[in-house]
């Protein structure tokens, strides 16, 4: 290697803080959205309306959660999913109800579309006994296991091997279920993913591993933290793969349904990159100096909820007044959830020692 001046040596690719050295690295490039209309995707008018309601609920729930956080109603971390709602919604509509879902800590949207009510979700954020995880998990650990939502996990990449275990058990028990695992682009750099992809392909596990590539691993643009195209990781494992436009719920639905059918039929895993965008910071304390306002606005201009709303109106699936009524209903539901969370009791002190072990009177070292 030719000698360089010491001042010219650098390692991580430069980003927003050194525009002169490489300029802005845009988070993600979206693949084209599907051109199919809902009927040709096999979706009824009512299903499309339900999709809209689900996405709108996720959005309003988090906007209210953010407000409550800022008011100091609860502490801890709050990672918002706003902007990514088409991914959770399109997927859940594509899967069967008993297919397994497991995700990372940006988990509110996933919980809401897998049976966690706004009340039990908001109460969980508040750390109340009425929360979906009895107030013991908080924002990062929503879970609704009886409806096959195995929860949100807080160690980046840590839940990916667990997803393969869910799939392993499904194959072992020949129950026809498939497992889906969602994680951010940051998790792509963890060894856990690579060990799991190898195991899953080798053992033909019925699983879909999905990168929700929202462009940023906390404050580091995807192109600054990982080499090449993320989806191409699949090639190294001989795994089937796809890239999906995550800003369009129909695109997510169409492709995820095809993939889910394929996994169910062949018991072979897929590696999928769904490109999307988060509007808010990584968590609530993020000043977001790593991206431009223009980039954010570009994605907000193709907002998945607005896009679906425009489609619904254009296709005459629902009227403006119908949608307004749905939105108002959801708004009220979320406000009621805030009241419910606020008025719910904190867990009893004795709860501190509950749920550590299965047995009634376990041993605790003192």
């Amino acid at each position, binding site marked *: 290697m030719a000698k360089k001046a010491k001042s010219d040596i650098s390692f991580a690719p430069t980003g927003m803080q050194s525009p002169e050295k490489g300029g802005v690295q845009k988070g993600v490039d979206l693949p084209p959205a599907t051109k199919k209309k809902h009927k040709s995707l096999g979706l009824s008018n009512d299903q499309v309306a339900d999709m809209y309601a689900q996405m709108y609920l996720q959005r309003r729930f988090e906007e209210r959660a953010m407000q409550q956080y800022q008011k100091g109603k609860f502490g801890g971390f709050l990672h918002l999913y706003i902007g990514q709602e088409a991914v959770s919604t399109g997927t859940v509509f594509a899967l069967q109800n008993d297919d*397994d879902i*497991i995700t990372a800590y940006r988990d509110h949207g996933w919980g809401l579309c897998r049976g966690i009510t706004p009340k039990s979700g908001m109460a969980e954020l508040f750390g109340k006994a009425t*929360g*979906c*995880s*009895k*107030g*013991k*998990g908080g924002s990062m*650990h929503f*879970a*609704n*296991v*009886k409806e096959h939502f*195995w*929860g949100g*996990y807080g*160690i980046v990449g*840590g*839940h*990916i*091997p*667990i*997803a*393969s*275990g*869910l*799939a*392993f*058990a*499904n194959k*072992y*028990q020949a129950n026809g279920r498939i497992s889906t695992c969602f994680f951010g682009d940051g998790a792509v750099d963890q*060894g*856990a993913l690579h*060990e*799991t992809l*190898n*195991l899953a392909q*080798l*053992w033909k596990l019925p699983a879909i591993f999905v990168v929700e590539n929202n462009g940023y691993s906390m404050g580091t643009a995807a192109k600054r933290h990982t080499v090449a195209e993320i989806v191409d990781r699949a090639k190294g494992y001989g795994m089937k793969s796809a890239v999906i436009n995550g800003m369009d719920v129909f695109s997510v639905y169409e492709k995820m349904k095809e993939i889910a059918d394929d996994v169910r039929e062949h018991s072979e895993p897929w590696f999928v990159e769904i490109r999307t965008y988060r509007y808010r910071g990584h968590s609530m304390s993020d000043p977001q100096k790593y991206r431009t306002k223009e980039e954010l606005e570009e994605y907000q201009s193709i907002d998945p909820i607005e896009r679906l709303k425009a489609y619904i109106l254009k296709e005459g699936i629902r009227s403006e007044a119908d949608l307004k009524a749905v939105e108002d209903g959801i708004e009220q539901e979320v406000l009621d959830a805030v009241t419910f969370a606020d008025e719910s009791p904190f867990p009893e002190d004795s709860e501190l020692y*509950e*749920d*550590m*072990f*299965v*047995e009634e009177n376990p*041993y*605790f*070292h003192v």
Partner: protein
Amino acid sequence: MAVLQFREAIKHAIDEEMSRDERVFVMGEEVAEYNGAYKVTEGLLDKYGYKRVIDTPISELGFAGLGVGAAMNGLRPIVEFMTFNFAVLAADQIINHATKVKYMTGGQADCPVVFRGPNASAGQLGATHSVAYDSMYAQFPGLKVIYVSEPNDAKGLMKSAIRDDNPVLFMESEQMYGLKGEVSDEQDFIIPIGKGKIKREGSDVTLVAHGKMYHIAVKAAEELAKEGIECEIIDPRTVKPLDVELILNSVKKTNRCIVVDEAHPFAGFAAEVGFLIQREAFDYLDAPVLRVTLPDVNAPFSKSLFDLWLPGPKQIIDAVKQVTYK
């Protein structure tokens, strides 16, 4: 009673539990076609087939996590690590996931997984293959940690571990696999987790020793008996939950205690037992509780240094003489 090798005792336990419960399966490096790196799983592939005895790649993090997920989703995995020294790569799955998933979901998911394999040193294997991890894992809430010393304990406790609905770490030793001992042939022989055993009665000093160190303690006790010092040896068998009562009762009788532990000294099992004794039996003590542990030093390769590093009977004998003022 049948005389079995340590490895056979573990295998019999796994075999019996696999016959009893379809959900139990074994996975790990070389467990199936190779018949086990240390032959613990010998013959299980032939008997149970490829669905239930599964060779894994060398991906400790990956397959440990797979075990956690499979346990959450209705199975009862036995995950073999070729040694717990390699399980450090899987520590995230053990510490952050297996032990926490039930709690952080408010009780919605259980994780009945057994992680098993040899622990600690096994001769001149160098610095990275020689660490005792039982104390470290016992630090974390939500785990049961077993480190047995004899075939009978191995069988009874392995069966308990597999039936337990919580995550359990079951530790063995490469150097004990060939050790023979009488093993109960009682139908469905079980030793409850958390129960220690008085393995030698004596009135002068209590030796608390588990795992491989138990055998060092026995040698020391035999030597000391020749000099008229009678050691009582308590093998806790389970590090956590710890059978504190059994230890305390013995100390209240002998008034002296040496804790022999294969871990490094700082904040380990020996430190914990010493603390418990001072808190619960302070008035009974005729001498400070002493410990015999590894030094605060990595395992050396050279035989001369290795022998200096690993606790032996002499260190126990010296400690006993110190507390008995002989």
